[in-house]
């Protein structure tokens, strides 16, 4: 005989992770209120929005499936060029549709390449993901007649959003647009990670052997999430291309993937907000540093990275205490979310 109370309690607990916490409302309210409260900041906020989305997509594979990637820019770049080209050759004039199309393209690319990251050690994965990004960069460089090669894709004009809001110089439209897209995609991601599917991802990340022993086809799950993440990254890229009306080889660059890791790590992987918070901190930090010392700011960024690792990511993350408490309330798992890769086993012998 089962106690009803236990069932209720269990239902409660299982649903708890998906329940909205006040701090989350506060987060999004302040994000949206920035549309009115910080008009002078919209340009950088726009960047934060798409960078946050980009980091969110990395979090999906790193924080939830434990896949390390140094080439996530591949999908970002693909999306950027796709959106820019669609606009330039007036194939799809409406930005939202173009953005979705670009995302879909990146999604497919993600699906195809996902099979490359199923096997192998972390290093092999790092190199393969990196390799994919490099190959795309080379292709973009080769086919200059299409992509503009090293000069970037010039002469892109983005039509007004939904035919009414044109992308103004102050980035007002840009920010609102990026923020809404980010919010919608965040909602979907949030739903996804709290679903049985999300739970199975965590199990796959935690113990693939056992996961398969209870009937989970590990590879299929990894492919699925990698594909989704690629789509997210593609949309982030599309947002960049549409808000700057430009795309250059830089979108594929290694530095972009590296920065992305930093962004996610600053915020903390494995609870979705990490990427967004990381983006905010990183961008303002970078903006501040590069205004302060235009020549040598990478030194300080580097120092931050080194310190984060030396001090230990878990402890560092405590200086985003309020955020953390939110994450803790949302899901205690993040306390150990830093264990994104299994302790190094001797995979190279």
């Amino acid at each position, binding site marked *: 005989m*089962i106690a009803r109370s236990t069932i209720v309690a269990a239902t409660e607990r299982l*649903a708890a992770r998906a329940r909205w916490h006040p701090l989350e409302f506060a987060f999004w309210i302040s994000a949206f209120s920035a549309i009115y409260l910080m008009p002078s900041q919209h340009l950088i906020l726009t960047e934060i929005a798409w960078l946050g989305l980009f980091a969110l997509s990395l979090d999906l594979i790193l924080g939830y499936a434990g896949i390390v990637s140094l080439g996530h820019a591949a999908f970002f770049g693909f999306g950027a060029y796709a959106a820019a080209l669609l606009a330039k050759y007036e194939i799809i004039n409406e930005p939202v549709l173009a953005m979705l199309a670009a995302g879909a393209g990146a999604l497919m690319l993600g699906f195809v390449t996902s099979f490359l990251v199923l096997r192998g050690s972390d290093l092999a994965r790092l190199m393969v993901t990196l390799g994919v990004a490099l190959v795309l960069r080379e292709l973009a460089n080769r086919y200059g007649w299409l992509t503009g090669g090293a000069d970037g894709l010039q002469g892109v004009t983005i039509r007004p959003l939904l035919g009414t809001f044109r992308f103004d110089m102050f980035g007002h439209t840009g920010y609102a647009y990026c923020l809404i897209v980010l919010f919608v995609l965040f909602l979907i991601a949030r739903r*996804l990670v*709290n679903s*049985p599917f*999300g739970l199975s991802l965590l199990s796959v990340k935690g113990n693939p052997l056992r996961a398969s022993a209870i*009937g989970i086809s590990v590879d299929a799950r990894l492919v699925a999430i990698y594909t989704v993440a690629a789509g997210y990254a593609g949309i982030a890229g599309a947002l960049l291309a549409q808000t700057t009306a430009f795309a250059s080889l830089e979108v594929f660059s290694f530095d972009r993937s590296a920065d992305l890791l930093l962004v996610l790590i600053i915020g903390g992987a494995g609870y979705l907000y990490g990427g967004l918070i990381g983006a905010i901190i990183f961008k303002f930090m970078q903006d501040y540093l590069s205004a302060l010392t235009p020549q040598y700011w990478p030194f300080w960024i580097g120092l931050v990275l080194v310190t984060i690792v030396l001090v230990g990511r878990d402890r560092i993350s405590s200086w985003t205490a309020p955020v953390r408490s939110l994450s803790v309330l949302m899901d205690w798992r993040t306390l150990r979310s830093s264990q994104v890769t299994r302790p190094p086993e001797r995979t190279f012998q």
Partner: protein
Amino acid sequence: MTVALETIDLSKRFAGIVATSNVSFRIAKGARHALIGPNGAGKTTLINLLTGVQRPSSGRIMFDGEDISGFSTQKRVGLGIVRTFQINQLFGDLTPLETIGLAVSERRGQGLDWWRIVGSRHDLVTEVVEILERFHLSDVMNTRAGILPYGKQRLLEIALAIACRPRVLLLDEPAAGVPEDERHEILSAVASLPAEVTVLLIEHDMDIVFSFADRISVLVNGALFVEGKPEEVASDPRVRAVYLGEEFADA
């Protein structure tokens, strides 16, 4: 008798070493079948072969008269061939509640459901709680599996397998390393397994084997050595010599 699981000339070789050689044996539906043998007799390899973790070098595995030798692990789980692990293989970051919830939703083929929130299905939760209760885990259902007491982890290990609704359950030393005072919980759990479930028990501990099994196969050097009713095996002089003798020597 109706056969649940059958192996035909099953062999497995690693780089020269023969881990399993021409093992042919049948497990009757609903049987309580024990597989014993000295260390290194190839018991775990056999389990790996049965569950599809490893592929046989030769021979076949039949389940309900169907050749499943080529099936993947998850496909066999789908058919109802489920195992527990000798050393705990749990999701350290998940609570028993989530672990069992995961297993049940997977079994129901809802694993790819990414839109509904975990726990939004009442019948699912009921089943989960029922399993937790049955294995005395409901009191710790919100504790990370990684920090559960060892006995509880073993229980969860078995509960996790049960959550997959096994038709054939392979128990790999369920009581291994469990302190005496916690054992009874495990043993009673094993004993109370539904009768229709066929159980293959791999065990060192003779007390458990003889209290539990209605049929025993002895594996030596990867080959099937003796098979029969417990009393037959117990009285078989060769077995005493090869296996039990050693056991006693150890003791």
